[in-house]
């Protein structure tokens, strides 16, 4: 349990992706089965344990210590799980005994009934060290919140076994905790686990962005072009009565889209874009689609208001026939006739774009026929369906980003290489009536500039600090003085969480406008106008 607790403690404070991968890989390498597999399941969200409510936890600790002292402690720490892990009284006799392993903790928690759950939990806390107590409480209260996605954990497994992460994604949904056969394979001690489960994920094929000068080297006749829709890339797999909708990283998102799953009455694997609206009438925006995301359950009302459908790009399998080795041109033909057999309110075909030369396509890319298009895709007619992001067969050619001029308001120190630099910038635009304009924050960006520019902004932040809050500095920003940042972003969503009412997608600093007076930065109305298109 201590090793798992230590892993959690380190992951939560390690900002860099590579740092997290090293910590995970070392853990999986040094810890034995079944502990490591259970840790993996806890991180990927595949571990089921009966939950204990925070109120119950509080009641348990109150039985054991003075409520006044607990009150002082909780006020100071601010986090219930952490406070309880620290103040939990422990007798030396308990520690001297055996420290429970993760497997023992999980087994005891899983075997506990609803009524004796609190008692089981209390006994476990008695026998554990402080950080192990924290880890146990996190397990039972749900949500580790350590900043590690399932995808990252799978990448660490891939690094451990020196295999492609796609291989792990493909196997994943057929495996169950504690994944002993997976680890055995990754360590070269056993054969690769056989795929036995139905409707497994097949790793998706990704594209590379078109770079400068790329097009000149390509022959338009070799490529098909199609719109790049601004939804969520998904894979619909239906096999032997099992229906699954996967995200492009292999997360099962079927639960959020029962309406679409219901229409998957076929035996095939389709690749496409998840969108909302009616494919025959109107395609909803990404903001509309967001109404359907990150929900544990979806009400009938939401399903009716924002019906989900899939715009199909490709087909990987029909019945028992794996089509992935066929060229795109042939798969496209198969897809076309297959989609005709499906419910037209739930599935349609992503149309191809007719073009003769790059110039003509460029015109279309600049003025797409629909606001839910974010660019065009180029696919070689002869390309098989490969996993990962091979260079050459598929390209994405995105619409140019939007830009606005905003004013730097707050700067936060970065991490790792940037820990002595103010490198994360919160910026705002003007709002309010003329004469009493105020800056309202609209986003935060931490890349898009060179190292030299970072040094310049860092100096500017240090020289123009108004206030400091821990690692954050508030920077002078008013009508007369302020640093204007040109911010590029891919789109805007409505947001109730932000004061400005908007949230940017993929914001980054595109230029430092040292030359531009702060008063001439953009106003919030400019952004609001973008929302309404």
């Amino acid at each position, binding site marked *: 349990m201590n090793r798992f607790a*230590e892993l959690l*403690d*380190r992951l*939560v*404070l*390690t*900002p860099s992706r590579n*740092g997290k991968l*090293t*910590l995970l890989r*070392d853990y999986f390498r040094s810890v034995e089965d079944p502990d490591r597999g259970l840790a993996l399941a806890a991180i990927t969200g595949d571990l089921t344990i009966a939950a204990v409510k925070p109120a119950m936890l509080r009641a348990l600790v109150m039985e054991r*210590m*003075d409520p*006044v*002292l*607990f009150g*002082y*402690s909780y006020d*100071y*720490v*601010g*986090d219930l799980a*952490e*406070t309880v892990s*620290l*103040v939990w009284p422990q007798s030396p006799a308990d520690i001297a005994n055996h420290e429970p392993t993760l497997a023992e903790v999980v087994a005891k928690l899983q075997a506990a009934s609803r009524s004796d759950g609190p008692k089981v939990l209390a006994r476990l806390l008695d026998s554990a060290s*402080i950080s192990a107590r924290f880890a146990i409480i996190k397990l039972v209260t749900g949500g580790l919140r350590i900043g590690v996605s399932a995808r990252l954990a799978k990448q660490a497994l891939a690094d451990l076994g020196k295999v492609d992460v796609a291989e792990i994604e493909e196997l994943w949904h057929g495996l169950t905790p504690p994944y002993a056969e997976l680890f055995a394979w990754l360590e070269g001690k056993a054969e690769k686990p056989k795929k036995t489960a139905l409707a497994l994920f097949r790793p998706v094929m990704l594209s590379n962005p078109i770079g400068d000068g790329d097009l000149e080297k390509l022959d338009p006749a070799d490529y098909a072009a199609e719109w790049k829709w601004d939804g969520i890339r998904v894979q619909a797999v239906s096999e032997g009565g099992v229906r699954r909708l996967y995200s492009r990283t292999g997360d099962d998102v079927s639960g959020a889209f029962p309406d679409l799953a219901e229409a998957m009455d076929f035996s095939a694997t389709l690749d496409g874009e998840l969108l909302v609206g009616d494919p025959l009438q109107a395609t909803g925006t990404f903001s509309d689609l967001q109404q359907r995301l990150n929900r544990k359950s979806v009400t009938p009302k939401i399903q009716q208001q924002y019906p989900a459908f899939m715009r199909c790009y490709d087909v990987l399998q029909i019945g028992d026939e794996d089509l992935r080795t066929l060229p795109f041109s042939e798969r496209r033909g198969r897809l076309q006739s297959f989609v005709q057999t499906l419910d037209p309110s739930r599935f349609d075909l992503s149309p191809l774009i007719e073009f003769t030369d790059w110039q003509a396509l460029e015109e279309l890319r600049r003025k797409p026929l629909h606001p839910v298009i974010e660019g065009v895709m180029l696919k070689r007619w002869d390309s098989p369906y490969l996993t990962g992001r091979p260079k050459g067969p598929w390209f994405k050619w995105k619409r140019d980003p939007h830009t606005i001029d905003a004013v730097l308001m707050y700067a936060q*120190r970065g*991490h*790792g*290489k940037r*820990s*002595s*630099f103010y490198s994360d910038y919160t910026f705002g635009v003007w709002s309010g009536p003329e004469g009493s304009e105020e800056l309202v924050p609209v986003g935060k960006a931490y890349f898009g500039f060179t190292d030299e520019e970072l040094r310049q902004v860092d100096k500017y932040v240090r020289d123009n600090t108004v206030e400091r809050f*821990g*690692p954050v500095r508030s920077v002078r920003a008013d009508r007369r003085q302020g640093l204007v940042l040109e911010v590029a972003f891919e789109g805007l969503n409505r947001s109730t969480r932000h004061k400005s009412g908007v949230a940017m997608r993929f914001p980054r600093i595109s230029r430092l406008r040292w030359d531009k007076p702060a008063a001439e930065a953009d106003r919030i109305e400019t952004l609001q106008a973008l929302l309404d298109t």
Partner: protein
Amino acid sequence: MRASDLLHPRPEGLYCPPGDFFIDPVRPVNRALITHGHSDHARSGHRSVLATQQTLDIMGLRYGEGFAGTTQAAALGEAIALNGVSVTFHPAGHVLGSAQIEVVHQGSCIVASGDYKRQRDATCEPFEPVKCDVFITEATFGLPVFRHPPDTEEIARLLKSTAQFPERAHLVGAYALGKAQRVMRLLRDAGHDSPIYIHGALARLSDYYQSQGIELGTLEPATVESSGRQDFAGAIVVGPPSAFADRWARRFPDPISCFASGWMRIRQRAKQGGVELPLIISDHADWDELTATIKETGAEEIWVTHGREEALVRWCELEGIAARPLHLVGYEDEGD
């Protein structure tokens, strides 16, 4: 004699009227008794100073030789009479030279402990419990949430991290007096024998520790001139915490910021400070040490000072020990 007639707070610090002296005064006074060398307890400009030889030496290093009119060294365990009041210095286990001061007059005995800890520390004499009527305790970590793990475990985590991330430098923030040397000594005791790089602010005090027979091994200045940039990969660099948020830290390749402090027990403190590897190493007593020490002294009355007085006073109440906060001003937690 009532205890509060023997010692009571004044704006300058804790004052003893019959002996006419102050303990750890925050303003210049005629006669000062000083528990240890941290700058909030040991200030310059007093007419005369009585402290352990090591504390006097440390004050000399920090403030220069003319830091006081006259100085007198107190030997540990030997009573000194000051206007008929008997004072004895006893080790406090906080930093090198640190002492508690036992004040006895007309059958009344008060121990002013200054800052102290109970965990073993190879860089200073261990705390010695002294039986007394009134025990004046610090309360820097006076909340039940503060429970310091064994320092060897913390150092083991640091060394494990240097093995996991050999391409990065580990920057350990540690206060210049006491903590820094303790961390270095712990590293040596754990078998880390490559040079430790130090910030300039640590040099003189670390040299002094070595001159007092506390082996710290090879220490090298963490300057770019003395070693090429790449050389810091895999190195452990110790410096004052303030230096790591500063431009000074830019000379290190992709550093992992570590901070050795009792405050690192609280995750949010580590997170807010941008600390990637918190090391819970403290020179102050944790909650369990505070409560155990209070019982050991056998004192009937506890005066609680600098820190979270309320929780410790509450604990004393629950235990049936008289306790009250002693409102002294001017002490920060420089030592942690």
